[in-house]
């Protein structure tokens, strides 16, 4: 029986296909790194035309001193307890107009979530990292409450709904549906986080 010389040559014609397959796989799976951070709105510089009277009990003051210690409503507080305290303040519901709140209805605390304002003050010497941690906790308090309500109403977290809504890859049909839901939850707990000008001392 005659035999061929050496091993037969492997057909390399399909190599390009495999290469393209891998290329497309990596193209689809890798995401270009995007920056992330805490979104905040600064107050406009012109003062509002009409003076708004805000009762003291509707303001939750948070003061950070230069050593990073917190003064919350005239008492020293550990940073770890801030989120709980802010949540308790926001859904306190003293006037009983908020039907979904689970607060204590303490008459000396906020009337309802739409009136509750968190005021954040800091010293010029405060470290930026401390400031961000406090901001994170306060935004976290809002997000926790919003998540709870979104879970109750729509069975999913508010934060995922919002990021889906803001994601440009989400199809517009889904976006339209999300828009009303996101708006509704936002109106339940409007984010009123005022950043007063720094105390100079």
């Amino acid at each position, binding site marked *: 029986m005659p035999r061929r010389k050496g091993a037969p040559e492997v057909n390399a014609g399909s190599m390009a296909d495999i290469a393209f397959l891998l290329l497309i796989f990596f193209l689809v799976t890798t995401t270009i790194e995007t920056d992330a951070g805490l979104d905040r709105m600064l107050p406009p510089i012109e003062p509002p035309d009409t003076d708004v009277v805000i009762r003291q009990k509707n303001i939750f003051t948070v003061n950070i001193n230069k050593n990073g210690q917190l003064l919350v409503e005239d008492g020293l507080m550990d940073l770890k307890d801030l989120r709980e305290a802010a949540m308790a303040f926001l859904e306190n519901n003293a006037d009983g107009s908020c039907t979904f709140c689970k607060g204590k209805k303490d008459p000396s605390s906020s009337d309802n979530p739409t009136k509750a304002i968190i005021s954040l003050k800091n010293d010029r010497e405060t470290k930026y990292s401390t400031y*961000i941690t406090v901001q994170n906790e306060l935004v976290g308090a809002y997000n926790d409450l919003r998540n709870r309500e979104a879970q109750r109403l729509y069975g999913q977290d508010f934060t995922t709904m919002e990021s889906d809504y803001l994601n440009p890859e989400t199809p517009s049909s889904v976006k339209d549906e999300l828009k009303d839901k996101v708006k509704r939850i936002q109106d339940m707990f409007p984010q009123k986080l005022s950043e007063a000008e720094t105390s100079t001392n």
Partner: protein
Amino acid sequence: MAKFTKKKDGDLPAVSTASLPDIVFMLLFFFMTVTTMKDSSLMVENTLPNATEVKKLEKKDRVIYIFVGTPTREYQKVFGTEPKIQLNDKFANVDEVGSYILAERAKKPQELQNVLTTALKVDKNANMGLITDIKQELRKVNALKVNYTTYEGDAFNNLQ
């Protein structure tokens, strides 16, 4: 036995290199997609703080960046060790922030000019005094939407 000796006569066939360009192109494309272009080199230390409640900054064309931190070692002789502001490729004072924002805003297309976000990339060791001054400048030019850019991570790690 004779069969085995017969086989050893011929040389090994050369491996086809026809697909080598494909592999090279594949690698090229892969690296092209995953690398992000830096439009300005950092002249300040920029270790961002951690936060958990972050939102992603989509649409890079709508973002203006401001960097704050202590100058890196090569610039410390000239600019000192106090935190400084970096706008594009040069150090700046607080009063230049407003005009920088206006200049950057003018460069963007008309329809984007009202939806711009200012991303503050601030080193975690900076003091709030400088940040407050920047915020005041941003309010003066009505650039009210800011994003404190952070890494994703436990916020309490910042305190150590």
